[in-house]
């Protein structure tokens, strides 16, 4: 025994080094066994610490992957913020009739999975007598015609908080606020722990419980890395104010489809924007103000 000890002593193979080298070797073997794409995906850094070249590479890989998977030419953009913008959103409670056009337009625009169903916008029906009363609201109303007598509607989606609890709790930094005020998720960096869902007081974050199912026909191939590109099973997603549209200067999809024009969007830093007009001239409320989340999603009474 002593001979063996003498031979091994310069290597100093203690428990720690043995485990370390075993882990490195086994993961190297595992990595060499998988395809190039999977390997790159596994070794991808988080979005904020990637260089421009690295981002370009990742985007190229994703575009190829999506094109192969959905049989359609995909564009994944990583367009940066437009300088001097800070987005805000306003919804006219006195106009909304609860028709849910926004809900389904959002699904088409942002490629939410169909099965299991996932909606970024949830329209709550409330009794006029009770006022805004989230506990007694009804998400599953199904009337022949809306607005239903004695009721009003409050669509809820990500409130894009200035002080977002979801961002604070993320253990890996996979979600953050961009400089134009959008809370985004890096779906590749998300580990699916769902802490953010527990932290969000608006139920605005959604989890992909199953493999994402999208129809080739209806899928929207104009995507943004931080927005509507197809997601993965086990990743959390949320409303991004249609980042792929608003960074091009366009209105979010829900603003454009609302048949009553209840949805308003604009740049909070622009004095002449619609959103500033609302904040300065209308009665505005925010949801769960007492939690100090400071939403940039305002509800107002247009009448």
């Amino acid at each position: 025994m002593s001979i063996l000890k003498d031979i091994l002593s310069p290597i100093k193979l203690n428990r720690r080094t043995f485990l370390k080298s075993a882990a490195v070797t086994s993961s190297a073997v595992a990595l060499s066994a998988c395809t190039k794409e999977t390997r790159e995906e596994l070794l991808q850094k988080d979005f904020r610490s990637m260089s421009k070249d690295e981002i370009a590479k990742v985007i190229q890989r994703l575009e190829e992957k999506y094109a192969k998977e959905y049989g359609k030419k995909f564009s994944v953009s990583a367009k940066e913020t437009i300088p001097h913008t800070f987005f805000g959103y306003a919804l006219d409670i006195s106009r909304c009739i609860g028709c849910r056009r926004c809900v389904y337009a959002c699904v088409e625009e942002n490629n939410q999975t169909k099965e299991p169903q996932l909606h970024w916008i949830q329209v709550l029906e409330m009794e006029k007598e009770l006022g805004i009363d989230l506990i007694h609201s009804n998400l599953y109303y199904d009337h022949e015609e809306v607005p239903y007598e004695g009721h009003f509607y409050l669509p809820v989606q990500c409130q894009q908080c200035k002080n977002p609890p979801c961002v604070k709790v993320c253990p890996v930094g996979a979600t953050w606020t961009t400089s134009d005020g959008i809370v985004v998720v890096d779906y590749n960096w998300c580990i699916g722990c769902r802490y953010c869902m527990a932290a969000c007081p608006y139920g605005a974050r959604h989890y992909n419980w199953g493999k994402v199912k999208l129809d080739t026909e209806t899928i929207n191939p104009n995507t943004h890395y931080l927005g509507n590109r197809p997601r993965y099973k086990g990743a959390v997603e949320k409303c991004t104010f249609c980042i792929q549209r608003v960074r091009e200067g366009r209105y979010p999809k829900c603003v454009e489809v609302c048949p009553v024009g209840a949805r308003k969007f604009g740049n909070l830093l622009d004095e002449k924007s619609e959103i500033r007009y609302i904040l300065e001239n209308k009665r505005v409320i925010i949801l769960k103000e007492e939690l100090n989340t400071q939403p940039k999603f305002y509800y107002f009474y247009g009448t």
Partner: protein
Amino acid sequence: MRRFWFIPGLILPIFAWLSYFPLHVASDQMSDSGEKTQQSAEKQQMDIQIPPPPFSEGIFPCSECHADMEVNLKRRKLVEFHEDIVLKHDEKNRWCMDCHDANNRDMLHSASGELIDFRESYKLCGQCHGPKLRDWKAGIHGRRTGYWNGRKEYLLCAHCHDPHSPKFKSMKPEPPPKKPGPIK
């Protein structure tokens, strides 16, 4: 946007040739303060566009039929034509000729008798609905499409509200979300 809920059965064909035209905001009544006039002048510089008015097919120009007809200013129930129009818009106090011009059939007119083009009908509506007109100009009332930092498109009042019966019509909602259940 599968359905258009404006005026049932109305579409916009005749005016297709007119295509889009700029909105003239600066000239009208918004100038109660110097600042506001400046604002509206700026708005005019911004590129804001409105689609043509939503006429029923073949109804415009009105003068096509009305040119040879005698003007009858007597308030009455219409029986031969336009009988499908049911006025539910302060009908006790008003009728056709309060908005449509009897002498120039292809135009509307304001309370003071000023002729108003159908493409600028918001000026007519705004006589009574002043705050709504103000909000509409600011982009708060009604739907806006286009670019938040550039060219925008408005709709005329009549695109969403039937001028003869302006209450917004109720509609069938899209299906409710599925209640959470076991994962397949």
